[in-house]
């Protein structure tokens, strides 16, 4: 087997285009993904025109000053604002593709909010050139506007609550520079009760005062519930989310596992299928298996070569990605196990493809054509398709190594779930495809 391995490595070395492709491909993938992740898809660049700039962005409600700049801060939590000087400039930046969208705070926002006759309106512009981008901008900016809205609503509700407390309990109140002493329902009730006691029993005015005192008491008691009511109005629905299945992998970390799985699949499948098929194309297979090498040894050599090369390239790619994304190098032995076992399962599948197609071009084409749907199917989320179709997709995904490799790498890289299950699954697939490729070799010569 040693001489066959050396021979194949020598052939690979003399195929510079193939080697360059095998080495450059994962590096390019790593850099692209790393670049995309480091730019932070959660913080897209958005042109921001603040029409309130230069003017006091303060609204007075019930004598309380609300700073809109402060209240609108949630808007910028998840976008990277590119400040511009005019609405037109913001729109032009969107048209030029310099930014993903534009957010316009109009000059009359404060006055509209102050008047409370109409709601304040902000404008959002974006290119809807592709559905994904449209969806992303809509979701991101609108979610942030909703957050700002909620924060402002809460603030206004707090002010309303203060006013209601003033009505209930009375106290000092400032408005337009003037101070007022507000009586309040409690004090009014007390004064009325004192006045009632000075009236003679049976006086008709006493009955009328009783009605007013009852009303004041009832109003005060009900106003005592206003803080809960306003809290509900300010935030009618709260979300308490709890993941039932799967880990807590972030999108960035999952993207690393996905990139590694895709690269591992492409490289291993193409190498294993191609290196086996080339034995037949060079007419060497029949000569080799005439007692020089057993068919099983030949398969083991090809699987080992493909898995070793692709594992090395995949680990190189992970090292490259670690420059952009935080990965836990302390878990390296687990990465290695996931990568190697995944590579062996892909190698077995590649050998089955090579044995069945029997020529390099057909093997490469089939490996390529099989890879994309496998990756696609493995990423279909539950609930996205009909239950029966989803069960079918799960079954198909389970019959090929991509999904378990992705699960294994996610577990190894991100501590998302157990690693043993996916590894056993991959081992079983490696065995099954190994047997299939051995059967395929019966008609290989």
């Amino acid at each position, binding site marked *: 087997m040693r*001489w*066959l391995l050396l*021979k194949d490595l*020598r*052939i690979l070395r*003399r*195929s510079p285009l193939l080697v360059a492709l095998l080495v450059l491909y994962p590096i390019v993938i790593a850099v692209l993904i790393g670049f995309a992740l480091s730019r932070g898809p959660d913080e897209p660049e958005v042109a921001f025109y603040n029409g309130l700039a230069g003017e006091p962005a303060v609204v007075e409600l019930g004598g309380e000053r609300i700073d809109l700049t402060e209240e609108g801060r949630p808007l910028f939590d998840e976008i990277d604002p590119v400040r511009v000087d005019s609405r037109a400039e913001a729109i032009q930046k969107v048209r030029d593709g310099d930014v993903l969208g534009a957010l316009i705070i109009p000059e009359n926002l404060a006055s509209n909010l102050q008047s409370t006759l109409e709601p304040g309106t902000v404008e959002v512009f974006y290119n809807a050139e592709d559905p994904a981008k449209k969806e992303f901008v809509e979701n991101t900016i609108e979610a942030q506007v909703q957050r700002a809205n909620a924060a402002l609503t809460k603030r206004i509700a707090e002010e309303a609550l203060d006013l209601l407390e003033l009505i209930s309990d009375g106290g000092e109140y400032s408005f337009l520079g003037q101070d007022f002493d507000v009586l309040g329902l409690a004090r009014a009730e007390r004064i009325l009760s004192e006045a009632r006691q000075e009236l003679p029993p049976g006086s008709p005015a006493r009955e009328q005062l009783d009605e007013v005192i009852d009303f004041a008491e009832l109003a005060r008691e009900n106003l005592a519930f206003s803080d809960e009511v306003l809290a509900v109005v300010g935030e009618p629905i709260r979300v308490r989310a709890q993941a039932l299945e799967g880990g807590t992998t972030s999108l960035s970390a999952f993207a690393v596992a996905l990139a590694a799985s895709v690269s591992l699949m492409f490289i291993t499948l193409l190498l294993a299928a191609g290196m086996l098929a080339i034995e037949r194309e*060079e*007419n*060497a297979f*029949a*000569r*080799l298996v*005439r*007692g*020089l*090498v057993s068919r099983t040894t030949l398969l083991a050599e090809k699987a080992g070569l493909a898995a070793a090369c692709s594992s090395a390239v995949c680990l190189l790619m992970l090292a490259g990605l670690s420059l952009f994304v935080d990965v836990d190098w302390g878990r390296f032995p687990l990465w290695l196990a996931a990568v190697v076992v995944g590579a062996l399962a892909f190698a077995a599948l590649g050998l089955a493809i090579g044995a069945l197609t029997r020529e390099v071009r057909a093997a490469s084409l089939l490996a390529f054509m099989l890879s994309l749907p496998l990756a696609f199917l493995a990423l279909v989320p539950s609930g996205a398709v009909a239950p029966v179709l989803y069960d079918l997709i799960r079954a198909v995904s389970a019959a090929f190594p991509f999904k378990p490799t992705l699960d294994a790498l996610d577990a190894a890289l991100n501590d998302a779930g157990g690693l043993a299950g996916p590894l056993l699954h991959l081992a079983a697939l490696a065995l099954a495809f190994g047997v299939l490729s051995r059967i395929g070799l019966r008609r290989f*010569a």
Partner: protein
Amino acid sequence: MGDSANLRPVETATATTVAARDLVKRYGDRVALRGVSLAAGRGELVAVIGPNGAGKTTLLSILAGIQTPDEGVVEETPSIGWVPQQPALYGKLTVEENLMLFARLERSPDPRATVDRMLDLTDLGDRAGDQVSTLSGGNRQRVNIAIGLLGEPEVLLLDEPSSGLDPRQRERLWEFILRLAGEGTTVVYATHHIQEADRYANRLVVLADGESVFDGSPRELEQATGTTGLDFEQAFVEFLRQRGH
């Protein structure tokens, strides 16, 4: 490949080195061989000839152990060298690397010496460092044959050894093969070149539609058809016609 001017076959054959009896091979409904038997002795040159699809390559593949017969027996032979019709070589490797790889796989006790001997034997010493993909068809075939000889086999099976070669290359190839036979190697070859069968073979085995229809010398075939004096190729065509092929 040596300077031998004697291009006549070696006439002496001794103990049998390769033998097969009543071979039957089917590919689905098609019967490729129907009870074919063949035996050859040490130093004998046996040509297997016949029309396309007669079963020549199948017969040699079974003798070489590439395929197994559905019926019949191939007697075990200590060592058989096999040279397929299409050169079985790695185009990205050099001549020397190809020879070295197969010498090692053949577990040659001294691969370096074996390779040097083959390079010398095939006159390819000056092309040893060239990648096989850059060689002419003739030179590739010489490397192909050299690999078949690496294990110093007692029996050499050649499938269309001279196909794709020009006349000069063919002549040099046959010098080489005749020398091997002269040194005691049994050579069984399938060919389309009827004149090569006539010139170099001690014995002819004629296959037609999977059946062995003649086993004897070229002269015996001429006599069997009553066509002495005719060109041998014409005699062969007449032989097949008389037997309904």
